[in-house]
């Protein structure tokens, strides 16, 4: 018997990363800005997304959403009230979405053509750990934190917050009532992800939404400009 060391040096999530890269190329050339929303369960991702879809539609944007949950299609039904096409992804026990699930649900989504969209939102499974390892082909990963969760959450989950491109604080309308320490929360987010854009929002009152929607529009324009310069 002889033993031998075989060097592999390959990414464990190579398959997911390759699928995500293909999706990102497709999204960019289709001109759709794709966002991956990640937070703990109960942060208010769905309420925030519901408001975002509604407000974007009012601005005349073409939007759609994929919603990940372990079970049930409650969130998809809730979001469909915005008038936007919404599709549920049930992971049946898996704690995060993977690029393959996104690709599969886009491929057979009747009546939805990504080339005819301006924005596609992917609401990840409520979890601050596992989704951070899985690229879904998104342009922007958004970490959400509610005022009820504790200002030190970014410090407890640095991997996720450090991988985010934007942060959203939700439920600002009850910040005072729950004794939310705003400065501490902002400091902690920036300590983990220096320079990140932070949006302080309330899906209920609509505060902070204008700034968020402007950011989305600018990000989409940026993406189109990048895509054109690559082709040119």
């Amino acid at each position, binding site marked *: 018997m002889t*033993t031998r060391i075989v*060097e*592999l*040096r390959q990414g*464990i999530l*190579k398959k997911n990363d390759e699928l995500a890269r293909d999706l990102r190329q497709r999204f960019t050339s289709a001109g759709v800005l794709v966002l991956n929303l990640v937070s703990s369960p109960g942060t208010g991702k769905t309420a925030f997304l519901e408001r975002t879809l509604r407000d974007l539609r009012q601005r005349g944007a073409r939007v759609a959403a994929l919603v990940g949950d372990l079970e049930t299609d409650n969130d998809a039904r809730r979001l469909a009230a915005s008038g936007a096409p919404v599709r549920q992804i049930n992971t049946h026990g898996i704690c*995060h979405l993977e690029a393959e699930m996104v690709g599969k649900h886009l491929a057979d989504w009747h009546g939805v053509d990504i080339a005819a969209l301006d924005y596609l939102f992917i609401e990840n499974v409520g979890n601050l750990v596992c989704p*951070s*390892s899985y690229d879904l082909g998104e342009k922007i990963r958004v970490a959400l934190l509610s005022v009820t969760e504790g200002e030190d959450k970014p410090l407890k989950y640095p*991997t996720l917050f450090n991988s985010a491109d934007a942060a959203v604080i939700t439920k600002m309308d009850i910040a005072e009532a729950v004794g939310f320490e705003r400065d501490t929360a902002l400091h902690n987010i920036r300590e983990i992800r220096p320079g990140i854009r932070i949006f302080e929002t309330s899906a209920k009152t609509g505060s902070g939404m204008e700034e968020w929607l402007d950011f989305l529009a600018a990000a989409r324009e940026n993406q189109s400009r990048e895509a054109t310069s690559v082709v040119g």
Partner: protein
Amino acid sequence: MHELSIISSVVESVIDSLAAYPGARVIEVRLRVGALSAVVEDSLQFCFELATRDTPLEGSKLVVKIVPVMVHCTACGADGELESLQSFRCPHCGEPATDVRQGRELEIEAIEIEEAEEPVRT
């Protein structure tokens, strides 16, 4: 707990790579895991034992090498190891560090195998 998904990918990749070594048995699987990769070594070990059952990897040892987080400082130009995951700052000058150069790895570095006594000649 996505360690089972991660380990399942490892097992799949290792089995694929064994195609070049017919009859070989896996002795050891070596991973490089970044300190910022959100996986827990104990969970990896636990899942590895479960996921390798009835595969050519059964009974093999999982060796996990943790890769520290290295940042490049755009302010002072130095590279350094992050002192704390709770503060992304340059270890030399203390300025915020946005350029993470290392620490997110999730890689299969190598496998150690025991080849079959009479290799199939082609």
